[in-house]
C-alpha cells in the first residue's frame, strides 16, 4: 500500500476510532453499567460522573505515559546494560562516554545553554521594544519571526551559504576579501569559535520567539507606571530597564527556560553543519553518534540530557501549581 493511502487510512481510523471510543465508552457507562434509572438511579449518576473523567483521560494518559514517561525509566535502565543489552554494567556506560568525547560535548553544551538563551532573549527584548514603537513594527516583527517556521536543517543550510569557505558564496569570506584579506577561512573549522558560529544559527531562529512573547508582555505593563516615570523625568533607557523590564521579569524567565530546554534537545544544527567534527559536538548530536550502534551509550547520553533538564522541569511544575491557586 502506498504511504499516502496508508496515511489517509490512518487518519480515518485514528479519528474514527477516537470518536467511536468516546461515544461508545460514554454510552456504555451511562446506559449499561450505571443506568440512571431504577432503584439506584441517583447513586448510579454519581458513579458515572466519577468514572467519566477517566474515560476522557484514558487514551491521552496511555499515550503520554507510554511515549514520555516510560522512556525516562526505560532509558535509564537500558543505560545500565552493555551494548547488547544482556549484561548489567552499572555506570560504566556513563564513564566510557564521558571519556570518549562526552566531556567535550558536555562543556560545549553548557556554553550553548548559557549563550543561546541569553542572546536570544536579549536581542528579542530589544527587538520587541523597538518594533512596538514604529509604524512598520508588525511587518518587521514577522520578518524577524520567520526563521521559527524553518526547519533546523534548512536553517543550517541557509547558514552554510553564509559560512561557505569561498568568497563567491560565503558572505563572511566576501567581507574579509573586501577588507583586504587574501585567503579564505572556514568559520566552521576555527577552534572554539566555530561553536559560536553554530550558536548564531539557533539564536537567529529563537530571537523571533523571544521577541513575540516579550512584546506581548511589554504591552501588558500598566501604562500608569510608565507615565509616572516620564513625569518624574526618567529617560527612555531608565524607563525601559528600571520600569518595564522588572515588571516582565517572570515572562523573561519563561522565555529563557523554554529556549534553554530547546538548546538541550536540538541536534540538527551540529549534525548538519559539522557532524560534530572540529570539536563542536554537543550532547544531542553526541547521542546520535551512538544511536543504532551502541544502545547502552546512547541511552546514557540521553539520560544526562534528562538530568540537565530536571531543574527546569521542576521549576515549570511549581509555576503551573502556583498559578492555579
Amino acid at each position, binding site marked *: 500500500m502506498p504511504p499516502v493511502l496508508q496515511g489517509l487510512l490512518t487518519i480515518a481510523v485514528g479519528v474514527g476510532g477516537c470518536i467511536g471510543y468516546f461515544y461508545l465508552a460514554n454510552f456504555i457507562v451511562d446506559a449499561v453499567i450505571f443506568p440512571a434509572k431504577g432503584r439506584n438511579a441517583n447513586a448510579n449518576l454519581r458513579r458515572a460522573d466519577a468514572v467519566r473523567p477517566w474515560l476522557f483521560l484514558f487514551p491521552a494518559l496511555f499515550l503520554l505515559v507510554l511515549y514520555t514517561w516510560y*522512556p525516562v525509566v526505560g*532509558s535509564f535502565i537500558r543505560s545500565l546494560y552493555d551494548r547488547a543489552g544482556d549484561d548489567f554494567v552499572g555506570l560504566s556506560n556513563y564513564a566510557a562516554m564521558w571519556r570518549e568525547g562526552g566531556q567535550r560535548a558536555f562543556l560545549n553544551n553548557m556554553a550553548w545553554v548559557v549563550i543561546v538563551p541569553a542572546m536570544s532573549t536579549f536581542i528579542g527584548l530589544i527587538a520587541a521594544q523597538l518594533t512596538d514603537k514604529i509604524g512598520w513594527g508588525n511587518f518587521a516583527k514577522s520578518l524577524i519571526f520567520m526563521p521559527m517556521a524553518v526547519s533546523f536543517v534548512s536553517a543550517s543550510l*541557509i547558514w552554510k551559504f553564509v559560512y561557505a569557505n569561498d568568497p563567491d558564496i560565503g558572505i563572511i569570506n566576501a567581507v574579509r576579501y573586501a577588507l583586504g584579506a587574501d585567503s579564505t577561512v572556514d568559520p566552521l573549522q576555527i577552534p572554539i569559535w566555530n561553536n559560536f558560529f553554530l550558536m548564531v544559527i539557533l539564536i537567529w531562529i529563537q530571537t523571533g520567539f523571544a521577541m513575540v512573547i516579550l512584546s506581548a508582555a511589554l504591552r501588558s505593563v500598566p501604562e500608569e507606571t510608565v507615565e509616572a516615570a516620564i513625569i518624574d523625568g526618567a529617560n527612555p533607557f531608565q524607563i525601559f530597564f528600571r520600569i518595564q523590564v522588572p515588571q516582565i521579569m517572570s515572562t523573561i524567565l519563561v522565555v529563557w527556560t523554554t529556549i534553554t530546554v530547546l538548546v538541550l534537545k536540538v541536534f540538527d544544527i551540529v549534525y548538519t553543519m559539522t557532524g560534530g567534527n572540529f570539536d563542536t559536538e554537543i550532547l544531542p548530536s553526541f547521542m546520535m553518534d551512538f544511536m543504532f550502534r551502541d544502545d547502552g551509550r546512547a541511552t546514557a547520553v540521553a539520560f544526562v540530557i534528562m538530568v540537565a533538564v530536571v531543574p527546569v522541569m521542576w521549576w515549570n511544575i511549581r509555576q503551573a501549581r502556583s498559578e492555579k491557586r
Partner: protein
Amino acid sequence: MTNIAGKRAPLVWAMHVAVFLLVVIWLVPTVGLFVSSFRDRDQITVSGWWEAPFAVENSGYGRTDADAALREGDIWVIEGNILDSAGAEGQFGADADVRLVAFGTSLRRPSEFPAGEVASTEDGERFRVEADGTYRVELPEDPGDRAPRIYFTAQTPPSFTLQNYGTVLTAAGMDRAFLNTLTVAIPSTVIPILVAAYAAYAIAWMDFRFRNLILAAIVGALVVPHQLALVPLLRLHQAVGIGQSFLGIWLAHSGFGLALAIYLLRNYMAGLPRDIIESAKVDGASDFQIFRRIVLPLSFPALAAFSIFQFLWTYNDLLVAKVFLPSNETSRVMTVKIADDLLGSRGGDWGILASAAFVSIAVPLVVFFTMQKYLVRGLLAGSVK
C-alpha cells in the same frame, strides 16, 4: 507607552535605523539562499549572490582556425568567431549571451586591448576582435597548423533559471521526499487533537482525584527530551511488529505532541467563562454534550494553534524521522534527504542545495504567514500565563 520616545526626533530615527538593520541582518541569509536557488550553476561559483543582478566576468581563450586561413596579397587572413573555436567551446553555457569586453594575445595579458580595437604585435601580426567574438587576424606568413591563440575577458549577463528546481524535484528525488514529509506530518497532526481535547476538558472542567498530579505530569512531560524515547520506543515498536515504519512515526509524533496539546488546550478551556458551562449543566447537559457542543467549538483558536505547532514541528523534524523511519530512499523525508543525502553526495552543488532548501521551507512559510495570528496566540497561551 507610545510617547516615551515620541518626543525626541533623533531617538525615533535611531529606532527606525536599528529595526531596519536588525531586519536586514535577519533576512540576508535567507535572501542569499533564495537568490542562489534561481542562479545558473556556472554563475553561483563565479560570483556572489549579491552580485547576481550584474554580469559575470570571466576569462577564456580560443585558438584561431588555421584551416580557414586565406591568402590576401602577401598576408594570410583568418576570420571566424573565437567563441565557437576549439578551446572556447564549453567554457560558457551554450545559449549564454556572452559579450567580449577585452582581448589579448598572450596569457599574461588577457585583457590588453578593448574589444573592437586593432592589436598589433611585434611579429607584425594584427588582431581585431569584436564584442560578439568575431575576429580577423592578419599574419605576415602562412600559419601552417600553428594558428595563434586569442585570450579574452568575457561578460556573461545574469542568468536566472528554474533548472535547479527541476533537478531537485526529478533527479534528486525531492518530489518523493516531499510527499513523504506530508505523509508523516498530516496524520501526526490530526490524530492527537481529539485525544488531547477530551483530556484537556477533563482536567479543566471535571473534578477527580489526582487532578493536580496529572497536570504536573503533563507540564513535566513538556520538557522531557525526545532523545530518551528513541531507544526504548524503537525497541518497543520492533517488539510489537511495527518496526521502523510510517505507522511507527505517526504514533511517536502523536505521543510526543500530546503533552503540548493537552497543556495548550487546557489553558484555553480553563479560561472559558464558567457561566456558560454551569448553565448548560443546570439545563441537564452531560459532560459529553458540553464538550461536543460548547467547549470544542469555542476552543477553535487553541485547536488551530496546536495544529500549526504540531504541523510545523513534525514537518521540520529530523530526529524522530531518522530513528522511526527506515533509511531507504522510498521513505526518506525532506529533512533526512537534505541532511544525509544532498549535503553528503552533492556537498558542492550549491544550486541544488539552495533549491532543495527552498522546496522544503515553502510549505512552512505559507502556513506561517497565513496563520501567524493563531501561532502567536498559541505561543502566548503556552508561555505567558
